[in-house]
């Protein structure tokens, strides 16, 4: 009897702790909004999101983050252009083509890629890649959108690759065998059967990879150039949202307009990634592989 009481108590204890993640997430939201919303006393939402000029310390100041959003979006998309094909192809290679022994070697490499600290990648982009592409393309500055995208692609490939690989791996064997039995080559099986069957997982992987690129700070802080302008070419310097926060937070006086504006940028960033994650979650929940009948 007493043991069962203890058991109940322990269970509620565990539940309480398990709720911590939700609590933390809510606290993050509460504080972002608490510190970010006061900026709306100075500008309205439309001016904030669609304003073209970011001059937070002028008197009067301008708090328009359109150029920063454009910077973030462009950098993320360009990095996706590089990372999505590479990530998925690597995943297919690992799951379908490589022999187990080769896969045993390649997988840790992908994991090590994921573990390389972002500041090191940013540093590499700044001191090695920037002078290199400056000479290679004969452009005025090496710290630009292209450089940052390249480094971000490197960071999102492991996410895209390992999640896609899981998805491909979980495609039922019977599907593959049926395809072979119909006379399809291995490649045709991959393209026409395996990839469509794992498409929801691959989509989730891509979304999470892009979400990681969007939220990454150090790389865009060090390699993107930091100009708050609307980019017109891939060799323009940009100032993505996280870079703005990181560069200016230290110098923004506590609870000044600038401070609130930076938290508001944090809200925008949070909302972006939150939506990305919800979509990814929805896709993986809705289209999860249930048996072999789900095709």
């Amino acid at each position: 009897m007493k043991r069962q009481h203890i058991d109940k108590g322990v269970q509620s204890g565990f539940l309480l702790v398990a709720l911590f993640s939700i609590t933390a997430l809510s606290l993050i939201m509460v504080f972002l909004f608490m510190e970010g919303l006061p900026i709306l006393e100075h500008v309205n939402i439309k001016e904030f999101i669609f304003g073209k000029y970011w001059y937070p310390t002028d008197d009067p100041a301008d708090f328009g983050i359109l150029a920063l959003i454009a910077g973030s979006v462009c950098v993320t998309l360009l990095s996706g252009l590089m990372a999505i094909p590479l990530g998925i192809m690597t995943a297919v290679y690992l799951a379908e083509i490589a022999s187990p022994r080769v896969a045993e070697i390649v997988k840790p490499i992908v994991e090590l890629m994921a573990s390389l600290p972002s500041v090191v990648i940013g540093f590499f982009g700044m001191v090695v890649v920037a002078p290199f592409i400056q000479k290679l393309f004969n452009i005025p500055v090496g710290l630009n959108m292209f450089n940052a995208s390249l480094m971000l692609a490197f960071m999102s490939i492991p996410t895209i690759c390992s999640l896609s690989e899981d998805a491909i791996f979980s495609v039922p064997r019977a599907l593959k065998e049926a395809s072979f039995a119909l006379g399809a080559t291995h490649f045709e099986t991959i393209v026409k059967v395996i990839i469509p069957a794992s498409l929801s997982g691959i989509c989730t992987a891509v979304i999470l990879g892009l979400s990681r690129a969007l939220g990454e700070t150090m790389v865009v802080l060090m390699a993107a150039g930091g100009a708050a302008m609307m980019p017109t070419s891939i060799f323009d310097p940009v100032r993505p949202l996280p870079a703005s926060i990181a560069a200016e937070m230290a110098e923004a006086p506590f609870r000044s307009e600038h401070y609130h504006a930076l938290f508001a940028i944090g809200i925008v960033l949070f909302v972006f990634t939150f939506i990305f994650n919800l979509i990814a979650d929805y896709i993986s929940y809705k289209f999860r592989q249930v048996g072999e009948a789900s095709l």
Partner: protein
Amino acid sequence: MNKYTELFISIIFLLTVSSTVFAGELVIKGSTTVLPIAQKAAEAYMAEHPDVKISLSGGGSGNGIKAIIDGTANIGNASRFIKQKEVNLAGTKGVYPVPFRIALDAIVPVVNKNNAVTDVTLTQLKDIYLGKIKDWKEVSGTPGKIVVISRDSSSGTFGVWKDLVMKKERVIPSALTVPSNGGIVQAVANTPGAIGYVGLGYLSDGIKAVKVDGIAGSEESTLNGSFPISRGLFMFTKGWPTGDIMGFLSFILSKKGQDLVKEAGSIPLF
């Protein structure tokens, strides 16, 4: 043993005055321009007073003054004087910030060392940073796109640049921004078409200082007031300093301290 260690030891021997023994912690925050001075002084001061622990962080002038008002730092570095807004804020919190001018500094426009331009006018500088002048040939240089490099908007150096060069007008959005003087040096050194501005102490090999209205930025032209872009560097304390804070400030304002100011590349007061 390198020369700095020797210097520290000689300082220890030369100074017979041993300060009040207050095992204390000094927190210094603020302008990156003052940082090299604060760092040199902190190293020397700690060598002299092993019981004092000094921690330093950057963060810009606004942050330095703010830290004093909030009480999160003992000394706030600033590369500009306190603003009326900040004085008012301090007043509402019952804090009386005390300024100490510890050095002078000139902000010098710099270009890549291979750039042929040696002299610009203040108006040309402004037009370059406004984006009206886009090519080096417009300021009698070799044709090529001008890459404008500026500082983050809340840095004190930027503030002075904005007051004295831009006359409160806005730097073009396409200007690259870097977080520090050192960052500008590096960016200008690596970018053939770049122009930037740094404190006098940061002039180094890869970059070339440009004369403004025919006057080169130097210790002399700053002290006699002929160089147009100069300023004082300050340390602020909350109320009149005591103990180690006073000790540290007196150290910087001593002959030894001012030598370190010079070593850090700024202009000593005397």
